[in-house]
């Protein structure tokens, strides 16, 4: 049996949170390239969101914008009552925020903001999207990172929020499988992205990661996009609540 058609997302509507730039933009472009109508969520980077939308259209794809501050439940509700009122088939929760510092130095407001964007927003988006997701055999993909299961220096609140995201993925995966909604996650290793380069120790971290990675390089946005595409397709139907680790084998080495 050939499965090529499983990657055809024509007729599907996909929301990518934090889709204006960086990894999110690549995820949006990948889903659009496979036929999905993509809705790009953003809050601050309107110019980048417009550029990503245009890039998708220039490539023959279809995309709309859905600005919403994911820290605010009322903004999420308004997004689903407005730009997403037709419902969605696919939700990719990529939006993330955080401060690069040790966990024991994270302040309460930084913790709240990080948890609310990185983890709680997935819950609130799923709650809003559930009627359409359940009706259409929906797919939910959470974008996590190795810091959710391992300890990365200066990654305190983000790592904890990614752990919460992966736990939420497990719960939603089990709870919603019976309703035909597939929920999984991907945890990437260190990616070579502008946002990741803001990490104060990026140079040293990148060198250490490459040294410890059997594949001898950092991950790319495309590496993650291909796995997200797999999780958005029926190819991953038998996976429920799982977090796929995509790190070139780095986390397996000692």
């Amino acid at each position: 049996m050939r499965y090529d058609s499983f990657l055809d997302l024509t007729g599907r509507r996909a929301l990518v949170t934090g889709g204006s730039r960086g990894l999110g933009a690549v995820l949006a472009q990948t889903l659009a390239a496979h036929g999905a109508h993509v809705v790009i969520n953003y809050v601050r980077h309107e110019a980048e969101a417009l550029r990503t939308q245009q890039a998708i259209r220039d490539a023959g794809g279809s995309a709309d914008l859905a600005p919403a501050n994911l820290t605010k439940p009322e903004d999420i509700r308004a997004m689903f009552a407005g730009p997403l009122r037709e419902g969605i088939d696919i939700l990719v929760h990529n939006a993330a925020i955080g401060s690069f510092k040790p966990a024991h130095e994270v302040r309460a407001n930084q913790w709240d903001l990080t948890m609310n964007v990185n983890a709680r927003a997935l819950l609130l988006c799923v709650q809003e999207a559930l009627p359409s997701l359940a009706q259409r055999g929906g797919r939910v993909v959470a974008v996590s990172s190795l810091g959710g299961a391992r300890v990365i220096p200066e990654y305190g609140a983000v790592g904890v929020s990614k752990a919460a995201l992966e736990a939420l993925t497990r719960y939603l995966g089990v709870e919603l499988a019976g309703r035909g909604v597939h929920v999984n996650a991907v945890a990437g290793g260190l990616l070579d992205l502008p946002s990741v380069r803001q990490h104060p120790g990026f140079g040293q971290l990148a060198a250490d990661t490459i040294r410890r990675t059997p594949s001898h390089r950092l991950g790319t946005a495309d590496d993650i996009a291909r796995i997200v595409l797999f999780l958005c397709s029926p190819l991953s139907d038998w996976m429920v609540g799982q977090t796929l680790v995509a790190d070139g084998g780095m986390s397996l080495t000692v």
Partner: protein
Amino acid sequence: MTSGDMPHRVATIVAEALNVPVERVTPSASLIDDLGAESIDFLDILFRIETAFNIKVRESELWDGTIDRTSQETIDASIAQLKVRQPDYRWDRLPAHPAPSDLGRLITVQTIIQHLQTRGVE
């Protein structure tokens, strides 16, 4: 809240976000140097301001609006104007010719208040 108490509300918002006593949140207080703000805190404060005053705020308008970052000359000229408007700021803490990376230290509580005043918030 009554009309005209915006500066007090801003001080309260900043104090709550940064977990500092509101008495420390004076108009001339630098968010970074005096109140310990980090980059994520600027976003937190912006979101709180938006919610409290029911407005949308562009980050660039709020934080970058007073400095022309085109070149060292324009930065220096902008700072010369800022020194007139913010005489209480401790200018001795900045280098004579601040680099773009120093400019965040110039953001004070008064920066927020002035932006809100330009938006008609009282």
